[in-house]
């Protein structure tokens, strides 16, 4: 998709070796990251890993302790925020409490001396697209959480900046609205090809929106790749464990003569050098419940959880839990012994100590 996004005004964003510390707290470490012009880059990471900080540094609200920030061809490290021409959705909304919704949304345009008529039109349009059409005359204090968040979003997308920075812009919206907004955003971004850096905790969101996903852990970049690859080809244990819900199952064991072995587990793994301390990872949807006879893993049903369209079955293999995604027709009682087989092409091995992927 990225390829055919218009390039006219879109600029690349480059963090090169950016680090940030608050006092002795090191929040970002030597972060190297580039978003191509028109790219939709999603930042993922645990709570507190430095996503917001990264965005704020790009926006120029924080000054990086080290490293430089580029927008397009320009080194903006020492530029004021207003000179960087970015639009941002704050994680904490930061609405103007003394302005009505309409005024809040209009502000970026008003500041830029856009003719009133046009402002009015744009505001109306944007408000519609975030479904706030009715509330334009309200003040932030008269809005619900989600509505406030949408005002914040609207205020950002009312402009055509060269970069969008969005910090969990949909986190407080209901599934339906979120789906809708997601589509809207994707469409808009596609249409305008504005480089976008997007923070979210919702993996479906990440998967559906992102051209590429950047995964941070404790301020260190773990992997930067397309959603599909991130999902199907994780660089290390952390990435593997972080992406996907329910998360990937991990089994400690060892690689010996062409198979991965652990109590109650024997998964053929040809062409693998033998190694003592190994973690095998397999996703719930890549395991299937097999007849107790065959199967590479065997254990007892530990819990069963019906989630709408499917059932999550937790199986105790040795001391280790394995979650399996089964059809919501699945029937079994706790403690039943079951066997599992895994989709051999979809198992991953990691070094138990370094967490590095073993290929």
């Amino acid at each position, binding site marked *: 998709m990225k390829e055919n996004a218009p390039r006219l005004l879109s600029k690349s964003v480059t963090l090169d070796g950016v680090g940030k510390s608050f006092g002795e707290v090191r929040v970002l470490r030597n972060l190297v990251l580039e978003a191509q012009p028109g790219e939709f880059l999603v930042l993922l990471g645990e709570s507190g890993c430095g996503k917001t900080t990264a965005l704020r540094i790009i*926006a*120029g*609200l924080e000054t990086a302790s080290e490293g430089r920030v580029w927008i397009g061809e320009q080194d903006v490290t020492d530029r*004021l*925020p*207003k000179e960087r*021409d*970015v*639009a*941002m959705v*704050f*994680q*904490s*909304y*930061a*609405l*103007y*409490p*003394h302005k009505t919704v309409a005024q809040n949304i209009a*502000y*970026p345009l008003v*500041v*830029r001396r856009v003719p009133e008529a046009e402002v009015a039109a744009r505001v109306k349009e944007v408000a519609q697209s975030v479904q706030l059409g009715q509330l334009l005359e309200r*003040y*932030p*204090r*008269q*809005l619900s*959480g989600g509505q*406030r*968040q949408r005002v914040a979003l609207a*205020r950002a997308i009312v*402009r055509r900046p060269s970069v969008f920075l969005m910090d969990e812009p949909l986190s407080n919206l209901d599934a339906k609205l979120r789906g809708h907004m997601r589509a809207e955003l994707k469409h808009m971004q596609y249409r305008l090809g504005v480089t976008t850096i997007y923070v979210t905790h919702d993996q479906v969101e990440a998967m559906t929106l992102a051209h590429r996903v950047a995964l941070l852990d404790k301020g260190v970049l773990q992997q930067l790749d397309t959603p599909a690859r991130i999902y199907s080809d994780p660089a290390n244990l952390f990435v593997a464990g972080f992406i996907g819900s329910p998360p990937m199952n991990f089994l400690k064991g060892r690689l010996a003569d062409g198979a991965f072995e652990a109590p109650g587990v024997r998964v053929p793994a040809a062409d693998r050098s033998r190694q003592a301390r190994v973690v095998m990872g397999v996703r719930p949807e890549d395991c299937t419940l097999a007849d107790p006879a065959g199967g590479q893993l065997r254990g007892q049903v530990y819990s069963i959880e019906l989630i709408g369209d499917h059932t999550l079955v937790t199986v105790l293999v040795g001391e280790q839990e394995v979650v399996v995604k089964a059809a919501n027709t699945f029937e079994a009682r706790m403690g039943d012994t079951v066997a599992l087989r895994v989709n051999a092409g979809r198992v991953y091995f990691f070094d138990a100590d370094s967490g590095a992927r073993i290929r």
Partner: protein
Amino acid sequence: MKPLRRLLAARRLDELAPAQKFVVYAPLLAWTAIVLFPLYWVIVTSLKEPIDVADGPYYIPFVDFRPSLHAWKYIFFDLGRDTLRPYLNSVIVSSAATLVAVLIGAMAAYGLARMEYRPSVGSVLLFVAAIALAALMSFWGGVDWRLALLAGLAIFAIALRMLGRRFRRRLANHDILFWVISQRILPPVVTAIPIYLMFKELGLLDTHSALIITYATVNLPIVVWLMYDFFCAVPRELEESAQIDGASRLRIFFDVALALVRPGLVATSLLVLILCWNEYLLALFLSTVEAQTMPLLVAAQNATRGPQWWYMSVLIIIMILPVIALTLLLQRFITKGLLVGAIKG
């Protein structure tokens, strides 16, 4: 048990339990009385004949004394112009001075609250020394003050070039803040004469501008201080989002910052306005005829015949009225929860 609860505990957040009501209203009403009684006395006095003031307290017009408007007549007709002029002067001077002080002061407060200043001790001392030199030259040396000032600045510039790099120790915002407020410590008794001389040099004696400049300056510190704290209470995120939206500093200051400290702003302006409105000593020296203000008129009512209570009362009353009106107008802006809904977390 239950009736007791009814008595002690409120039923909702937006109302008070009977018991609380008492605890709350009693002091409020008490202080109201304390405030109003003297003023009532002033009003009554303004309606008394001297004789009624002189012997024994009389409280209620018509009941225990015959009210008369002689004092009002005197102030409004006999004095006439001599009341009106100072009155207008007071209005002009204090409103103008307030505007200037609040504007400049609020800006400084904002700067100090949001940005970092680290002037080096040395250069500050240097500057002061230079200005001092200029002052001396013009005061004792009899040099024309403009020349003196230029010379002083020149010296400063040169010296800074030469020594600038040497200075290590630096001041911080709070030093500046304290310096600002410390300007109010010296009592006007001693500053009045020098200020008088300054304005004599400038040839501004007995003009509005003299008073406006003076009042604006002497009240700046108060503005800076009060506003500083109010600005500190505003979450930075709001201004940050304004920055992102592309507003200039100045614009942020007016569109966002000022709007969000409105209660503080109003309170401060009212205070400054009133301080200007009531200032006496400086007014005495800087004005002779044209620029005389009301406080002079009030003070003047104590002459060889002793205080003319009745006239004073009238003056006091007519001096309060406009301020009351203004306060009524502005107090609406001192309201709750201005920031609700602005920030999550």
